[in-house]
């Protein structure tokens, strides 16, 4: 008697938990979809607007679908209308940004890897202090270094040039990249370095042959971080460069703000998307190589 009572109550409980689970699952999807649309919405508006003509924009709503695949505003944003003075378009500035971001990401990542390597595998007296000061560099706001940096660039004779911006971004990036690599190399057993030293490898050989080949995950992280920071930077670009040497974000700003007559929303949107595409590409490409635990095999027993 008691057994059957028990089993029926278990069945009830089972049923109840099934419904609860189902409800929670639907609730979860609802929330996820809500947030996803919240984030995708601005992008949707941008893409849709960039494909419309000005006529459509004036007549339709923000959300309305474009009449066709109208790429004219993209062409204007990228290459201009072809008349002389006052025509701002992104192409030259896009290449400025590429010329700035590639060396800046490369140098800051490389120097960060080196510093991280030294701070973890070639410890010296006072190395914690060096690390502490580098860490401090992460917390200095951009604005605080504008004036001293402008002066430095002036003295070096590279103000208002892509080279100058490369220097600024490299220097400003080192604290972050060092932090990344240092934290990664801390988990790499120092015995690897000892073994290599006994095998006769020197400082650079150990770095290039032993440590760098297992650093892929952190290199990817650093590249993503640095690329995004430098590509999206507006403050340094607008402060240390103007006119032809400006990076794309500055040009984008000039384009959008300097329109004399009508606001061309479609061109503005197309420009903004163009300025954002490289970062997206880096995320998509690099994300693939985001593999963890390459060293785990050598460490654990």
């Amino acid at each position, binding site marked *: 008697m008691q057994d059957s009572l028990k089993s029926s109550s278990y069945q009830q409980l089972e049923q109840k938990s099934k419904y609860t689970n189902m409800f929670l699952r639907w609730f979860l999807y609802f929330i996820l979809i809500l947030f996803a649309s919240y984030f995708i919405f601005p992008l949707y508006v941008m893409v849709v607007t960039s494909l419309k003509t000005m006529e459509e924009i004036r007549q339709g709503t923000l959300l309305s679908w474009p009449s066709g695949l109208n790429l004219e505003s993209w062409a204007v944003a990228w290459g201009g209308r072809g008349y002389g003075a006052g025509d701002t378009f992104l192409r030259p500035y896009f290449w400025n940004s590429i010329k700035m971001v590639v060396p800046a990401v490369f140098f800051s990542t490389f120097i960060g890897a080196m510093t991280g390597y030294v701070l973890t595998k070639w410890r010296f007296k006072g190395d914690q202090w060096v690390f502490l000061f580098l860490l401090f560099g992460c917390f200095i706001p951009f604005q605080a270094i504008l004036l001293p940096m402008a002066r430095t660039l002036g003295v070096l004779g590279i103000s208002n040039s892509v080279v100058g911006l490369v220097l600024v971004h490299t220097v400003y990036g080192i604290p972050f990249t060092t932090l990344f690599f240092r934290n990664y190399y801390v988990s790499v*057993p120092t*015995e*690897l370095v*000892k073994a*290599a030293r006994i*095998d006769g*490898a020197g400082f650079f050989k150990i770095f290039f*042959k032993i440590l760098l080949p*297992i650093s892929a995950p952190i290199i990817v992280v650093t590249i993503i971080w640095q690329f995004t920071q430098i590509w999206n930077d507006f403050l340094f670009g607008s402060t240390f460069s103007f006119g032809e040497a400006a990076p794309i974000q500055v040009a984008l700003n000039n384009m959008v703000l300097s329109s004399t007559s009508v606001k061309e929303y479609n061109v503005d949107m197309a420009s903004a998307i163009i300025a954002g595409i490289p970062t997206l590409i880096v995320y998509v490409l690099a994300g693939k190589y985001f593999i963890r635990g390459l*060293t785990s095999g050598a460490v654990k027993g």
Partner: protein
Amino acid sequence: MKTLKIEELSKNFGSTEVLRKINLEIDEGNFLVLLGPSGCGKSTLLNIIAGLETINEGNVFIDDYNVSKVEPKDRNIAMVFQSYALYPSMNVRENMIFGLKQAKTSKEKIEEQLEKVSKFLQVDQLLERKPSQLSGGQRQRVAIGRALVREPRIFLFDEPLSNLDAKLRVEMRREIKKLHQQLKTTVVYVTHDQTEAMSLGTRIAIMNHGVIQQNDTPENIYNKPSNTFVADFIGSPSMNLIKGTLKETSGEISFTASGSNVEIPIKDYEFKDKSNLNNKEIYFGIRPEHIYFKKSNEIDFEINLRANLSEYIGHEQIITFDYANQEILAKFPSTIKIELAKETKLFFDITQISLFDAKTDERI
């Protein structure tokens, strides 16, 4: 000529003294085990021999040549690490020949060495694999192989077995022993495991607080520990140290535990110094395995003790007895039935005892 000689070596990290005036000599072909609890400085000593740590004072000689300031690669040594330290990005072949390549060895010589060693260690089927694709035992072999191809004068092992599981550890221990028997290369081996030390070493140096406590053969370490630290460190369970005093009456020496009136006669004990033994405060050391349930020879000393606790561990049992309010442990085969809370007749093997000065903790 000594293969390795360490002279008055001291090392500190900042204000902490890690090694204090270490003197050590190893003859060609010996297997020296540095044994001690963690933090005793044994790994630091090994790193100093390898040249991975600098020296504050003293010198290291390899083949009578002062290598104190010589780079690790030029010391003619090879080292096997606890974490194996195989280069993760290289396959087994590249791992093993990395050192030879650095030393600009000719291609033919490298191939020859690689073939010889990989066959010898049975890793010749694994040459193209990455370390992450190997099992623990295989990694260990490759790590040893990487050391072997260089044909060093001295092998250094830094706790090479502590990352392996219990079964594999015993297997690899035997393999290392075989390896040493075949190659007869001088070995310095660091471990905190006394079984490993006892079974592998031809000599054992026991360290504590940066000082070598005893450097001797395994037999002497076990039978004639030079102080209470060594006596306590070696053996499981460790040696019973019973506090008490010696008495000398007309040439006959006996021991009385404090709080007891039983006199244990001391016969055939090799005292270092026979003077001033009367009324000396000492520790009477006897190993749990030298307390018998049945009388085994004439000299055995009969005593009645009360059993308090029994720990069964399969093939044997460890019984805790009360001896004048001092706990002493004894080890018996588990076939023997011992009743707790009762007086039991036991026999101390007087030929196997060690006596230590209670003030200095040194063997007398």
